[in-house]
C-alpha cells in the first residue's frame, strides 16, 4: 500500500470518527445537547484526535526507523570475508541497495524471474543491461543480501500498513467507548491539543540537538582518522585524494577572519553613519525612501551578491586596482568578497543601530542642545554613548553573519588556501572548504570528507559564541529609560 493511500485512509477514518463521535454523544442523550458535559463537537474532536494522532506518529517513526533496521539485518548477513580490502560495510551495503534495485528492474521488465536471476552466472552483465553498473565482481553473499533486502522491504511496509490501520481503529474504538454524557470531552481534547503544542515547540530543541550531535559525532570520527593537533596546529591545507593530506585549519581561519574584517570595515562605518543620518538628520521624506532601500539589501539572496562579486566587483577590482598596482592578477580575492559582503551587512548594522538610536529618549537630546551643543556633538557625546551596547551587539551579530556566510566567498574569494597579507590575493574560508569537501562524489570514510564536519563544528562554536556574547551585551548594558 502506498504511503499516500495509507495516509488518506487514516485521514478518512479520523474524519469519520469525528462525525461518529458527535452522533454517539447526541444519541446517548436522545438529541438533547444540554445534558452533555461539552458541546457535541468536542466529542467528535476527541475521537478525531485519538484516531489520527497515534496512527500518524507511528507512521512517521516507522518510516524513520525502517531503513535502519533493514540495513542492520541485511548487513549482518554479509560475511566479513566478503568485504573487499580497503572497503567498508557501508560501501558493500550501497552495492546491495543497487543490486536490489537492479533485480527489481529486471523482474519488472519481465525478462527473468527472481530465482532465475539469482542463479544466473553473469548477474553483473544482466544488471548492467538494466542500467545498474557495478564496479567489481559480485560475490554470492552480496547477491543473497540484496535478495533479502528486497524481500524485507515489502514485508516491512505491509506490517507498517497493518499496524497503522489497527492503531487508528483501536484509537477510534477506545475514544468512542468512553463517550457518555458525563465524559469531559472538552477537557480531554484540550489537554490533547496542549500536548501537541508542546511537541511542536520541542522541534527547535530537537534541531539544535540534531545539529550538535551530527557535528560532534562525525568530528570525533574525524579525529580518530586524523590527529587533532595536526588539525589545530598545522598551517598547511592540502587535501589529497589518495590520503596523506595536510588538513590544518589555520589558512582557512585566516581567510575567514580576513574577509570578515574587510566586510566589517566596510559595513560598520557605513551602517552606523547611515543609521545616525536616518535617525537624526534625514527629513521624513528622505527616510521614507532611503530606509526601505537599504533594507532591501538584507532581503536579496546571498547568491545574488555572489554573482555580483564574480561578474562585476571582482573584474573591476582586478583591472583598476590590483593589476595597475602590480599586486595581484586574480579577480577573486579577499578584497572582492569582503567588499561585497560589507555591502550585504550594511542593513544588519544600520537597522539595529537605527532602532537603538531611536530608543534614546528625546529628553537626553534636549538636555544636550540646551547646553549649547551642536547636533553632531550631541550625537557623538550623548547619543552614541547611550546607544553603544546596542551598537556593539549589532556589530557582533554582523560579524557572526560574516563568518558564516557561504555563497559570496564561494564565488568571490577563491579556493586557494594560503595565509597572505595581500588583500588582492585569492584566499579561502572555512565555509568554502565545507562546500568543496562535501559536494561531488565523496565517500564518507575518508578524513578529507569528514574534516568538513570538524570545520562545521568550529564554525558553529564561533558563531554561537558571538551570538551569545551579543545577546549578553545587549541585555546587560541596555539602558532602561522610562
Amino acid at each position: 500500500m502506498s504511503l499516500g493511500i495509507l495516509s488518506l485512509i487514516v485521514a478518512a477514518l479520523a474524519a469519520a470518527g469525528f462525525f461518529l463521535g458527535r452522533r454517539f454523544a447526541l444519541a446517548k442523550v436522545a438529541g438533547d445537547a444540554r445534558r452533555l458535559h461539552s458541546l457535541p463537537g468536542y466529542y467528535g474532536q476527541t475521537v478525531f484526535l485519538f484516531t489520527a494522532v497515534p496512527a500518524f506518529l507511528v507512521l512517521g517513526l516507522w518510516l524513520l526507523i525502517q531503513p535502519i533496521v533493514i540495513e542492520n539485518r541485511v548487513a549482518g548477513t554479509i560475511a566479513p570475508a566478503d568485504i573487499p580490502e580497503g572497503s567498508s560495510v557501508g560501501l558493500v551495503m550501497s552495492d546491495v541497495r543497487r543490486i536490489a534495485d537492479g533485480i527489481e528492474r529486471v523482474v519488472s521488465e519481465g525478462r527473468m524471474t527472481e530465482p532465475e536471476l539469482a542463479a544466473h552466472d553473469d548477474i553483473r552483465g544482466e544488471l548492467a543491461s538494466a542500467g545498474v553498473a557495478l564496479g567489481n565482481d559480485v560475490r554470492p553473499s552480496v547477491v543473497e543480501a540484496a535478495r533479502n533486502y528486497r524481500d524485507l522491504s515489502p514485508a516491512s511496509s505491509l506490517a507498517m500498513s497493518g499496524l497503522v490501520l489497527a492503531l487508528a481503529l483501536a484509537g477510534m474504538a477506545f475514544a468512542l467507548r468512553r463517550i457518555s454524557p458525563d465524559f469531559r470531552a472538552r477537557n480531554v481534547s484540550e489537554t490533547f491539543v496542549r500536548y501537541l503544542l508542546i511537541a511542536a515547540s520541542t522541534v527547535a530543541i530537537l534541531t539544535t540537538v540534531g545539529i550538535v550531535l551530527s557535528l560532534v559525532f562525525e568530528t570525533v570520527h574525524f579525529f580518530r582518522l586524523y590527529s587533532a593537533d595536526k588539525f589545530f596546529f598545522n598551517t598547511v591545507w592540502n587535501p589529497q585524494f589518495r590520503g596523506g593530506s595536510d588538513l590544518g585549519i589555520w589558512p582557512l581561519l585566516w581567510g575567514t577572519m580576513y574577509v570578515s574584517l574587510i566586510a566589517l570595515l566596510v559595513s560598520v562605518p557605513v551602517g552606523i553613519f547611515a543609521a545616525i543620518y536616518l535617525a537624526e538628520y534625514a527629513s521624513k521624506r528622505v527616510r521614507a525612501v532611503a530606509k526601505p532601500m537599504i533594507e532591501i539589501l538584507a532581503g536579496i539572496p546571498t547568491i545574488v551578491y555572489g554573482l555580483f562579486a564574480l561578474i562585476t566587483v571582482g573584474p573591476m577590482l582586478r583591472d583598476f586596482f590590483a593589476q595597475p598596482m602590480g599586486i595581484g592578477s586574480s579577480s577573486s580575492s579577499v578584497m572582492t568578497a569582503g567588499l561585497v559582503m560589507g555591502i550585504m551587512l550594511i542593513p544588519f548594522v544600520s537597522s539595529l543601530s537605527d532602532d537603538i538610536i531611536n530608543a534614546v529618549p528625546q529628553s537626553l537630546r534636549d538636555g544636550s542642545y540646551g547646553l549649547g551643543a551642536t547636533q553632531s556633538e550631541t550625537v557623538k557625546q550623548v547619543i552614541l554613548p547611550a546607544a553603544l551596547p546596542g551598537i556593539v551587539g549589532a556589530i557582533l551579530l554582523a560579524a557572526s553573519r560574516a563568518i558564516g556566510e557561504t555563497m559570496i566567498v564561494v564565488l568571490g574569494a577563491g579556493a586557494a588556501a594560503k595565509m597572505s597579507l595581500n588583500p588582492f590575493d585569492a584566499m579561502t574560508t572555512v565555509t568554502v572548504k565545507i562546500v568543496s569537501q562535501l559536494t561531488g562524489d565523496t565517500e564518507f570514510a575518508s578524513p578529507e570528507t569528514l574534516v568538513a564536519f570538524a570545520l562545521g563544528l568550529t564554525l558553529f562554536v564561533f558563531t554561537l559564541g558571538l551570538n551569545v556574547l551579543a545577546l549578553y551585551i545587549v541585555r546587560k548594558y541596555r539602558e532602561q529609560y522610562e
Partner: protein
Amino acid sequence: MTAESTNSGTSLYKTDARTKRRNASEARFRIYGMAAVGFGVLALIVLLTSVLGTGLGAFRQTFLTMPVALDAATLDKKGNRDPAEMAKVTTIGYQKILEKALIAELTEQKLIPEGMSAKDVGGLISKEAPAQLRNKVLANPELVGQTITFRALANGRIDGYFKGRVTMESAALDSNVSPAQLELADKMRAANLLGLSFNWGFIFDPDASELRPEAAGLGVAILGSLYMMIIVLVLSLPLGVAASIYLEEFAPTNRWTDLIEVNIANLAAVPSIVFGILGLAVFINFANMPQSSPLVGGLVLTLMTLPTIIIATRAALKAVPPSIKDAALGVGASKTQTVFHHVLPLAMPGILTGTIIGLAQALGETAPLLLIGMVAFVRDYPGAPPEGFLDPASALPVQVYNFTQRADPAFIERASGAIIVLLVFLLTMNILAIILRRRFERRW
C-alpha cells in the same frame, strides 16, 4: 566662553574661530551621514543594474526559422508511423535533415559563401535543435513526410554574436565558430532567416549540457523550488504556529521554556551551511532519504525557516490586546477556546506575513542545498507529488551557482537571467506580504 572671546570686543555677528570649527565639524558629520546613506543606495542600484544588464539577454534567444522536409525514407523506414520504431533514428539523423534543410534554404536565397563546407553551415544550428525536432516528430508521427516550418535554436556563439558577447576578433581565435559563419549569420539576419525572439525555453526547459548554453533553461529548477516551498509551507506553518501558541499563551515560565526560547533565538542566527550539514548527516546518511530530492531540501529549509516564523507569529500574537482575551474568558470560554477562537484569527494576518517572508528567505537560500546534493545535473522533470518529492530536482539559486561553475561565458548571462527570475518571485512574495499587512493589519 573663554576670556579671549569676551575681551576681544568682536561683534556677535561675526563668528569666531571656535564656532567656525564647530560648524565645520557639524557640516562634515552631516556629509559623512549622507555619504553613508548614498553608498548604501548606490550599492543597491549598481547591484541590480549589473544583474539586470547581464541577465536580460537570457530572455531573448537567436532562432533560425526555415522549412524542413521530414523525409519519410530516413525517419520511418518501415512506413508504419510507429513511434517505437521511429525512435531508432537518433538525433544524428535529424541533424542531417536540419543541415540539409538549411543548405537548401540558403542555396535558394543565394546566401552560401564560396568554399564553406556543409558542416560549417550546419554549425550555425544548435546541437540541441535535432533533439527538439526529434521529440516533436515522435510526439506527432503524422508530421513525417510533410514539410514543416521549424524554429531551430542557433548555436550559442551565433547567439552571443548578436548579443555582443562574441566579436569577429574573438571568433578568429575560437575553434567553435569562425568569422565566416558570423558573416553568414549577419546575411541570414538581413534575409529574415534568423532573428532574436522571446525565449520561453529559458523559463520552461530543463538544464542543458555544458556545451549547449543556448538550450539551458530553468524548468526543473523552478519546479524543484516550487516543490520545496510547498513542503516548507506545509510543515513550517503548522509547526511554527503551534510552537508559538504554546510559548506565548500556555507555557509556564520555567527552565524548560527558557531553554526553548534561547534555542530559537540561537537557531535564527546559526549559519545556513550548518543546516546543510545537519541535512546531510541526519536526513541523507542516517535516514537514507534520496539525495538531491525536494523532500530533503524542503526539510532542511523548514528547520531554517521555523525560527523566523516563530518569531513573527509570537509578535503577532503579542499584538492582540489583552482586552480581547479578557472578554472571551469573561463570558466563559476556556483558555484553549480563547486562543483558537479569538486570538489566533486576529493574529492571522501577521502570521501569514511572517510566513511569506520566511518562505522568501528559504527560496533564496543556496548553501545548505549544495551539501544535500542539489548541485547534481538534473535534466528530467520530477514527477507529480507526492512521489515527485523523492525525485532528483534542482533549485533556482543552486541552478545559478551551477551556471557560474561552467566555462562558457554564455552561462554568465544565463545565471543573471536566473537571478532575475528568482528576484521576480521574491518581489511577488514580498509585495503579497505588504498587501496582506496593509489590508488586514489592525491598530488597536
